[in-house]
């Protein structure tokens, strides 16, 4: 009972922190390299807890992100739904990948997310962003192993402590 509650706190807390990190400013020079934290955390939970993370959940989460950033309602919802769908489709494989292979898969997912973003913005008539637009997925990829190990460790501790 309390174990699942602790898991719930970790789940909700990690997503909340991801949103705050997403909004947190970086120095001007580094800001294009900010990884898509919400996507990274969502990928983790989609792999580990698919019972909680469905397409509907991703949609709601994305809509929440849209409300927070205040650009176009539905943009992040679309991006996260696509992302979650791919993760859930290949979940069995992703789950048993070694970490480096997972990292490459995450890079693919984030690059795909960039393409989706570009499509959405293209359709809504925005200018094409510059080349640095494509760097953030690389940083996301570099962050993934640490995030994965951190969360795995936290979850193991929660399990052990009960």
């Amino acid at each position, binding site marked *: 009972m309390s174990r699942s509650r602790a898991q719930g706190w970790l789940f909700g807390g990690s997503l909340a922190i991801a949103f705050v990190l997403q*909004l*947190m400013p970086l120095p001007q020079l580094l800001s294009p390299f900010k990884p898509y934290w919400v996507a990274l955390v969502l990928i983790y939970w989609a792999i580990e807890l698919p019972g909680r993370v469905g397409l509907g959940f991703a*949609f709601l989460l994305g*809509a929440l992100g849209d409300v927070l950033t*205040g650009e176009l309602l539905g943009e992040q919802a679309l991006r996260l739904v696509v992302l979650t769908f791919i993760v*859930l489709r290949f979940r069995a494989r992703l789950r048993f990948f070694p970490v480096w292979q997972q990292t490459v898969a995450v890079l693919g997912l984030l690059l795909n997310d960039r393409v989706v973003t570009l499509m959405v913005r293209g359709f809504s008539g925005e200018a094409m*962003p510059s080349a640095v637009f494509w760097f953030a997925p690389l940083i996301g990829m570099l962050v993934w192993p640490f995030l994965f190990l951190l969360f795995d460790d936290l979850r193991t501790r929660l399990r052990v402590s009960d």
Partner: protein
Amino acid sequence: MAIARTDNATLFAEGTVSTLRLIVYLAFAVALMVLDHRGGYLELLRHAGSAVIEPIYRLAAFPADVARATRTAVATQDRLASENRELREQLLLAQARLNRLDTLVAQNARLKDLLDAQKNLGLTVQFARLIDVDPDPFRHRIVLDVGSHQGIVVGQPVIDAHGIMGQIVEVLPNTAVAMLITDPTHAIPVVVERTGLRTIAHGSGAIDRLELPNIPISADVKVGDKLLTSGLGGRFPAGFPVGEIVSVKPDNSGMFNAAIAHPSAALDRSGEVLLLHDQPQPYGPPAASEDVGPPAELAGPATARTPESTQ
């Protein structure tokens, strides 16, 4: 989501996420985007959720605030001293310009009295601080700590000590979002100070560049030319510095020149900004805009000459 599944049940259950549901959600998201693009429902939603959004913004800005406070606290004595000296000099200069301008304003008021014109040129400004959050690094938006409760409305120009920064595009109760002039979707009507050539400066998406495409080949535009707001369009008042030309080249077609300008305002450094109120009548009759024009032109060269005359 509907059925509570255990962890084991989904170990190899690849088929649980159906393509049909994906399509339904994608369609839903696209419908939402189209509706929002046309109707701007997101703003309503943000207004309703502002009680939650604003604290989250403050929370996200907190580490940056702490970092800045720490930096100030540990800044070395001589750096602060030199900064202080620099600011003192700037203040002196600004004061001198202001005195000069005061006489002009008084003169202007007198002349206008003579002309029986009631129009008030005085610009009232409101001070605002940046909330250090970054919704998207590829869109040039800043978040300010004032909102509709403080009387902010959409469309107000945002300036700093050096020039035009942008304009307010969204207002929440205690927060406002401004679009910078370098945003790729932003354009501002400008006039070249030296020659009076009117053109439009577009945002480039880079924080230190403005683009001025479509300048006639024959037009006299040189590197170092200052750009001021022209006041056309009614959004920005005339005569505020916008930028300085850093390069002029023929564009790809060879029919026009394309210039690059460096914004005057410290877009990536300003922590405090001013919001202008009481902008000149946007769509007034020609007579009204004539009222606005001459004093700004008078003030322009006078303020530009001041640095030499005071040194």
